């Protein structure tokens, strides 16, 4: 039977269409059809200036906008050889890690919803709201920030910011334990996700999967540690990898648990950053008056909550990019869906899709 999941469906994370060929309940082939959210991001960039590209990058992965911005400005600053002040570096790391926590909360909450657990979804969104309130305090926007600019950030931290984030961290860290009790170690959840959709490391690397999906398969690869950018070398944090605690290494539960542990690591980074942030400095100091990078090209990767976010920028010396390609981690994650969910049941396809944590905005651009 050829079934069609989506494009309008409660649990595809965005407008995604899956053409599923099933034999009863067992799935034999899945063909994802994407492009419903294609907004010609790359063509628009060729007609905009480098500053005008930043709001566009926000809208690609709309759940982790800070990290999208971060990737772009890191690539641009490498290309133009700009060095930003210390305070800007710390602010960027704080924002990126807060957004990482928010993104993981959404991923885990909606995954629980897909599997049928309605309540943890609301608990996680309640905590995500507190992070969005912090962002609103800083730059006025809750979801799409346009915050990190080439050479600096758009707004300096408001008064009382450090206090607020410390309060949030003190509130949040015990909550992770609560989530573990209610969802992660729940017997029914484990039965739904353990041993399902096992992603072997070689398959993952060949498919270009990265981020928590790759780490769930046991590969210790994190761009923040292995190709460090900004000031990540100064922080002391671990890279959690999947070890098959309740099933096989690389199953859905491992990917889920890696995200839970990553939230804890992000809180560690946040605490260290808040302690060491320089208290004064002009965040607009290093903003170039006119962005005209030298001729050349650059490919730079950063770690977004979904994996390796890469920007390939070709500049021809003019104020507009000649070509800008965004290599999105969710694109590669979705391509591996067919490989790992063949032979499982229809409910498992939903479980696997949720564990890959895709955002269609990033896939389609």
């Amino acid at each position, binding site marked *: 039977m050829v079934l069609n999941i989506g494009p309008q469906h*409660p649990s595809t994370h965005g407008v995604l269409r899956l053409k599923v060929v099933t034999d009863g309940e067992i799935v034999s082939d899945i063909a994802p059809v994407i492009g419903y959210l294609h907004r010609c991001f790359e063509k628009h960039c060729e007609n905009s200036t480098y500053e005008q590209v930043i709001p566009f990058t926000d809208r690609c992965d709309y759940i982790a906008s800070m990290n999208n911005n971060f990737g772009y400005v890191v690539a641009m600053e490498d290309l133009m050889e700009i060095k930003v002040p210390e305070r800007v570096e710390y602010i960027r790391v704080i924002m990126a890690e807060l957004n990482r926590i928010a993104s993981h909360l959404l991923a885990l909450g909606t995954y629980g919803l897909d599997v049928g657990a309605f*309540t943890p979804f609301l608990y996680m969104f309640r905590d995500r709201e507190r992070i969005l309130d912090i962002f609103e305090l800083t730059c006025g926007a809750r979801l799409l920030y346009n915050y990190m600019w080439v050479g600096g950030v758009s707004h300096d931290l408001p008064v009382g910011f450090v206090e607020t984030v410390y309060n949030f961290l003190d509130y949040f860290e015990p909550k992770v334990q609560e989530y573990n009790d209610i969802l992660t170690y729940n017997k029914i959840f484990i039965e739904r996700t353990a041993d399902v959709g096992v992603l072997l490391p070689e398959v993952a690397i060949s498919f270009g999967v990265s981020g928590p999906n790759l780490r769930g398969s046991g590969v210790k690869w994190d761009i923040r540690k292995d190709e460090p950018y900004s000031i990540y070398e100064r922080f002391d944090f671990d890279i959690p990898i999947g070890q098959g605690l309740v099933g096989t290494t690389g199953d859905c539960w491992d990917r889920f648990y890696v995200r839970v542990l990553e939230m804890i690591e992000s809180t560690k980074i946040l605490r260290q950053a808040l302690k060491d942030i320089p208290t004064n400095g002009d965040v607009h100091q290093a903003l170039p008056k006119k962005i005209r990078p030298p001729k050349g090209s650059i490919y730079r990767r950063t770690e977004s909550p979904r994996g390796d976010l890469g920007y390939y920028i070709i500049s021809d010396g003019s104020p507009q990019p000649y070509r800008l390609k965004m290599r999105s981690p969710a694109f590669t994650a979705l391509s591996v869906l067919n490989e790992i969910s063949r032979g499982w049941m229809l409910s498992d396809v939903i479980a696997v899709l949720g564990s890959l944590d895709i955002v269609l905005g990033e896939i389609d651009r």
Partner: protein
Amino acid sequence: MTVDRLIDWFPISATWPGLTFLLAVLICAVPVFLFIAVYALVVIYGELKISSFMQDKVGPMGQGVGLHAWRWGLLQPVADALKLILKEDIIPASADKKLFILAPFIVFIGAFIAFSALPFSQTLIIADMNIGIFYILAVSSLGVIGLIMAGWSSNNKWSLYGAMRSAAQIISYEIPAALSIIAVIMLTSTMSMQGIIQYQSGLIWGFLPNWLIFNNPFTFVAFFIFFISGVAECNRTPFDIPEAESELVAGAFTEYSGMRYAFFFLSEYANMFVVAGVAATAFLGGWQSPIPGLFNSPAWGLWWFMSKTMFLIFVMIWFRWTFPRLRVDQLMSVCWKGFTPIALVNIFGVGIWYLTLG
């Protein structure tokens, strides 16, 4: 009993017994239908509020008695019911019309006629048959036919999936439920609902009421088996894969709208009441008060029955918002490899207990 009393009361019963019977049945059926409607409103409101409090929300707050002073949203379910009644009745063009229209009624009938054997109080039972509990178990399977009709006639692959899963689930979970009831019947030696409740009068060990749940460890386990199988029969989470929202939109009922959907909805809640009612009767003493001797007039009997049933329904709602859902094959393996063997062992256990310990 009530039907019999009504028949005796009618002055024309001697000359036209058939007509009298029909009239008596109608007079009993209408209050039951009204009761189901009102009860559904109460339970829907309860579900919304309880789920909201469990999820750190506030739930419906708007419409209701006293718009500003008591913002309790008490009229929310009324608004829901009105909305469903006033919605456009869409029948998909390629659906099988006759079956499509018939399906909600059959599902509702399956739940509705089980009410005729529920003992609301000592004197308030529509028909006290000597096979009461057997009758309830039998007619609650009627709903399956309606579900399959709904899934098939919608001409929608997703509905078909939902209907097939649902049918398999309900039929399978009937077995452990029935086996648990057999354990009860073995002790009470009667299948009549009032008889089962009468058996549970008195005290054990001087202070515990002689309810079957406390009687012996095997019936204690049988209660849980029956209750969880009942939750599965109602298609409630953690067994709600047939209507799994995140996978199949609404399962077998995807194509239904308006009043027809309301009927399915209503019958799900009616089913919940039947399951909770039977569990309360067979294991928790029905309309008997926990303190024998006190509070056992018929009015109090109604109160005890309703409160036990409502407590069990609260537990069902609690389950729904706490657990993720089981996958279909896991559901089935829990039933056939878990519950059915335990229920069979229970029957043996009860028999041996009765013979050895009296």
